[in-house]
C-alpha cells in the first residue's frame, strides 16, 4: 500500500494532569510524524512525558489526565474525538503497543495462547479453532518453542523474556500499521534484551509497520531508529536523523545528555563524566524550560520561549543558540592530569594505593543455599577472591547470579552457610551486629533504591548523627563540624540537614546515603547498584562523587552492577558471576578485552552488540594512557 501521508501524525498535542497541586502540563505542544516502515525514537528521562505521549496516542490516559489541545491523526482519522467503542476497533488491530513490564502485562489467570487468540476473535470474528491456529502461528513467529504446548501454559510458567515475546506476538497479531514500544526491554537482563532486540530486527523485515520506540536508553534507540526526538519536560527539544542528533547535537539538553553517559570502553582514569547540573529551580513562566541548567544560556533565554528552529544538517532544535551548540561539537575529554588537580593533594591517580599492602578483604569458600518449596537453591557456591586497599572491584552478573547475596554476606546482612569473610585480617563471618565496632566502622554499604535507603520518619541530621554515634566515629563534640564537612563533600547544602527524606530528590537522597556510608571513614564500601534507579543525568554526578570520595578517602569499593559500562568505567578488577559461581575474575581491562569464560563472552557481546551500533560522540582527542582499550569493531 503506497502511503501518500504518514501513518501517524501528531500535531501540537498537549496533555495535562489534574493533581493535588493543580494542573500539571505533561506534554506541551508536541508534533511528530511517522511514515510507513519508519522507526522513530522518543528519548527522555523520567518526567519528560514520553510514556504519557505513548498513552495519549492510544487514548488511554488515567482518570486525571486529559488531552487539552492538538490532534492525533492515524492515517486520516483524528483519534482525539473518537469514542471508546470506535477506538476499540482500531486498538490491537491498526495500532498496537508493547509495554515495559511483561509480567504485569499478561493476565495471570488466562492461558498465554488465549490472550493472543482473543485478539483474532475480537477483530476478525474467528472461532476458537481458527483463532487458536493463528495464535500458535504467532507464538512460533516470536520464537517460542513448542507453540502448541506454550499456548496452554499460564504466564507464570514463562521467563521474563518469553513473556515479552508473548506480549509482542499479541501486538503483532493483526499486523498493525503502527506499533508503539514503551521501554520494551527495561528491566530485562542484558542477554535477554539483546535477544529481544534481535527479534525486533527480524520482525521488522517482515512488516511495514510504522514504529514509535520510546526509551530512556539512547544507545538502544540509536540502534533501531532512523529518526529520533528528544523530550524534555513535555517538549520536543530536538528532532532529526538519529545520526545527526547523536553525533552532532544542536540542543544543549541533548548534548548534555550525551555527555553524561558513561562512555563504553573507557575507564575513570582517562575521562571524567560531565553531569548535567541539577534542575532545582524552575524556569520562570514564558522562558526556555531548560534555562536553569543550560551551559549555553543567555539573558534572552529567561525572557522568551524558543520554538523549534531548523538546525544542523537535518535537525530541528528548540534553542535560540543552536548554532553555537553545533559549533561546540561533541563534549570534550578531560585528560587524567586534569583530574589529579581537581581532586586535591596526596590523591594517587590511576592504580590506587600500593597494591602490595596485603589484602583488605579476603573471601574464602563462601556459600549460601536457600530453601524454597522443598527445593534447595544455591545462591552462591564457593566464592573466593581478595581485594586490596584503595581498589575498586566490580561484580557483574544478571538476575539470579548471586551477586547481591554475595554482597549481603560480606556486609553481614546474611549469614553464610560455609566459608569465611576476612576484613583487615579479622574474621567477620558473622551477622553485622556481632562484629566489632571497628569492623562495622570500616565496612559500609550504599543501596540501590534511594527511596528506601533513608528512614522517612527521621531527619537527615538525625540519620547522620546516629551513624556517627553508634559507630564511635571520632569526637562527639566535633560531630557537627564533621556533618557540615560531609554535606559539602557530597554537594548538599547545610539546610538539608533539617529536611526529611521525602523533601529531597532521588539523587539527593542517594547523596545522603553516600554521606552516611562515608561519615565513619570506612575502608571498604559496598555499592549495590548505586545508580541504577537514577536518571542518566543524575547518575553521572553520583559516579563522579563516588570516584572523588574514593580517591580522597583511599577506600576500596565493592561495586555491584548489571550495567557493564558503569563497571568498566569505575572498576580496577572485575568478577563475573553466573548462577552463583564466579566464572571470571581479573583486571578490568583483561576481562573486557579478552574474556576467558564463554558466559562472559556472551554477556559482553550482548552489550557491545547494541553499543557498537550506536553513533556516539567520539572523543575529540584519544588519550594515550596504557589503560585505554580499543573499542571492539561493530559486528
Amino acid at each position: 500500500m503506497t502511503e501518500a501521508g504518514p501513518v501517524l501524525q501528531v500535531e501540537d498535542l498537549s496533555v495535562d494532569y489534574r493533581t493535588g497541586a493543580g494542573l500539571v502540563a505533561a506534554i506541551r505542544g508536541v508534533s511528530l510524524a511517522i511514515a510507513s516502515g519508519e522507526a522513530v525514537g522518543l528519548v527522555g528521562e523520567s518526567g519528560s512525558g514520553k510514556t504519557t505521549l505513548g498513552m495519549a496516542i492510544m487514548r488511554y490516559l488515567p482518570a486525571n489526565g486529559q488531552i487539552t489541545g492538538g490532534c492525533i491523526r492515524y492515517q486520516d482519522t483524528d483519534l482525539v474525538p473518537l469514542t471508546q467503542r470506535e477506538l476499540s476497533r482500531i486498538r490491537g488491530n491498526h495500532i498496537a503497543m508493547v509495554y515495559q513490564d511483561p509480567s504485569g502485562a499478561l493476565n495471570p489467570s488466562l492461558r498465554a495462547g488465549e490472550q493472543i487468540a482473543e485478539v483474532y476473535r475480537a477483530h476478525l470474528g474467528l472461532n476458537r479453532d481458527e483463532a487458536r491456529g493463528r495464535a500458535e502461528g504467532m507464538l512460533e513467529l516470536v520464537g517460542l518453542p513448542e507453540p502448541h504446548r506454550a499456548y496452554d501454559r499460564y504466564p507464570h510458567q514463562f521467563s521474563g523474556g518469553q513473556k515479552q515475546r508473548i506480549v509482542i506476538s499479541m501486538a503483532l497479531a493483526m499486523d498493525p500499521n503502527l506499533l508503539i514500544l514503551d521501554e520494551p526491554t527495561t528491566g530485562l537482563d542484558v542477554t535477554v534484551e539483546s535477544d529481544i532486540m534481535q527479534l525486533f530486527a527480524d520482525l521488522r523485515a517482515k512488516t511495514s509497520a510504522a514504529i514509535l520506540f520510546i526509551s530512556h536508553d539512547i544507545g538502544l534507540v540509536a540502534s533501531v531508529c532512523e529518526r529520533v526526538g528528544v523530550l524534555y519536560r513535555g517538549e520536543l527539544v530536538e528532532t532529526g536523523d538519529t545520526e545527526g542528533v547523536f553525533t552532532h547535537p544542536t540542543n544543549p539538553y541533548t548534548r548534555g545528555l550525551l555527555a553524561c553517559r558513561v562512555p563504553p570502553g573507557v575507564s575513570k582514569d582517562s575521562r571524567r563524566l560531565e553531569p548535567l547540573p541539577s534542575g532545582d529551580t524552575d524556569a520562570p513562566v514564558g522562558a526556555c524550560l531548560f534555562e536553569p541548567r543550560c551551559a549555553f544560556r543567555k539573558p534572552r533565554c529567561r525572557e522568551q520561549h524558543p520554538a523549534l528552529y531548523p538546525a544542523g544538517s537535518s535537525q530541528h532544535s528548540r534553542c535560540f543558540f543552536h548554532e553555537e551548540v553545533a559549533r561546540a561539537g561533541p563534549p570534550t575529554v578531560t585528560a587524567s592530569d586534569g583530574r589529579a588537580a581537581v581532586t586535591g593533594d596526596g590523591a594517587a591517580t590511576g592504580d590506587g594505593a600500593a597494591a602490595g599492602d596485603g589484602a583488605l578483604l579476603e573471601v574464602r569458600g563462601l556459600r549460601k543455599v536457600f530453601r524454597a518449596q522443598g527445593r534447595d537453591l544455591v545462591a552462591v557456591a564457593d566464592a573466593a577472591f581478595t581485594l586490596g586497599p584503595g581498589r575498586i572491584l566490580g561484580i557483574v552478573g544478571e538476575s539470579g547470579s548471586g551477586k547481591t547475596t554475595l554482597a549481603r554476606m560480606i556486609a553481614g546482612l546474611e549469614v553464610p552457610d560455609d566459608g569465611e569473610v576476612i576484613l583487615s585480617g579479622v574474621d567477620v563471618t558473622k551477622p553485622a551486629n556481632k562484629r566489632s565496632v571497628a569492623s562495622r566502622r570500616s565496612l559500609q554499604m550504599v543501596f540501590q533504591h534511594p527511596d528506601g535507603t533513608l528512614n522517612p520518619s527521621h531527619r537527615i541530621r538525625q540519620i547522620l548523627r546516629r551513624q556517627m554515634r553508634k559507630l564511635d566515629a571520632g569526637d562527639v563534640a566535633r560531630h557537627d563540624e564533621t556533618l557540615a564537612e560531609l554535606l559539602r563533600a557530597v554537594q548538599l547544602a547545610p539546610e538539608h540537614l533539617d529536611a526529611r527524606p521525602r523533601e529531597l530528590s532521588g539523587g539527593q537522597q542517594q547523596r545522603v546515603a553516600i554521606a552516611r556510608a562515608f561519615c565513619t571513614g570506612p575502608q571498604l564500601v559496598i555499592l549495590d547498584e548505586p545508580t541504577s534507579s537514577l536518571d542518566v543525568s543524575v547518575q553521572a554526578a553520583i559516579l563522579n562523587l563516588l570516584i572523588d570520595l574514593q580517591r580522597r578517602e583511599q577506600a576500596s569499593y565493592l561495586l555491584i552492577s548489571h550495567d557493564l559500562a558503569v563497571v568498566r568505567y569505575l572498576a580496577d578488577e572485575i568478577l563475573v558471576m553466573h548462577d552463583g559461581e564466579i566464572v571470571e575474575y581479573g583486571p578490568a581491562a583483561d576481562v573486557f578485552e579478552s574474556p576467558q569464560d564463554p558466559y562472559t563472552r556472551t554477556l559482553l557481546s550482548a552489550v557491545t552488540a547494541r553499543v557498537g551500533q550506536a553513533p556516539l560522540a567520539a572523543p575529540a582527542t584519544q588519550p594515550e594512557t596504557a589503560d585505554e582499550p580499543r573499542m571492539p569493531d561493530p559486528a
Partner: protein
Amino acid sequence: MRHVRALRHSPGVAMALLVLLVWVVIAVFWPQLVPYGPTEQELTSRYEPPSAQHWLGTDNLGRDIFSRILAGSRSVLIVSVASTTLGVAIGTAIGLCAAFYRGKVDELLMRSLDLLMAFPIIVIASVVLAMLGPSRLNLVVVIAVMLAPYNARVVRSAVLSWRDRDFVAAARMRGESGAFILFRELLPNIVGTLNVEYTLRLALSIFAVATLSFLGFGIQPPTPDWGLMVSEGRPFYQIAPWVVVAPAAAIASLIVAINVVAQKLRS
C-alpha cells in the same frame, strides 16, 4: 496539623467528631445534666410517651429514659475504650513480635490467631462470659482478647512491609539491636496505621459491648446501659416503642460517628 486542615473539607467528618465530642462530654458530666436519677422509679408514670417533663418518655418502671440514656453513655464509653486499648496493646505486641522474629514464632502466632479469628466474637464472648460471670472487668478482658488478633494481623503486615527497606539494612549494618530497630526505626513509620486501627477497633468494641449487653452477658441491671435498655424494652415494644428506639438510636449515632472518622483516617 495536616489532619485538622483536612477535616474542614469534609462536613461529614466534622459532624461525626462533634457527635463524639458531645457523647464524651455527656459521659463525663451526666450527673450534672440529668433531670432525674437514672434509677429513680416513678411507678405512677409508667410507659409515658415523650413529653415536656420526660423528653424521651418513661419505661416500664417509670424511669426517665432521657436520664438513662445520658447515664448509659459512660459505661459504654469506658468499657469500649478500655477493651480497645487493652486489645490494641496486646495485638500490637503480638504483631510486632511475629513480624520481627519471623520463622517459627511467626508461624505459630499467626496460626493461633487465625484460629481465634475464625470464630464469631459474639459466640465465644457469650460462652466465656456465661461461664465467668458478667462483670465489667470480664467484659473488658474478653472483648480485648477477641479484638487483639485483628490488630495483630494489621500491625504484622505493616511492619513486614517496612522491614525489608534498605534503611533497616543500614541500621543492621550499624549493629543496632533488635529493640532499637523495632521501636526507633520501624514503629514511627506505622503510627498512622495504628491510629486507624485504634478507631476501627473502637467501633468494633462498641458493637460488641452493646450486643453482649443486649444478650444479657454484659452490663447488668439496674445500671443503665443502652444495649440492656433495648433488651428490657422489647416486651413492651408495641405499647411503648420509645423505650427501645431511644437507646437504639444512641448506639447507632455513636457507632456511625466513630466509623465515619475511622474511614476518613484511613484515606
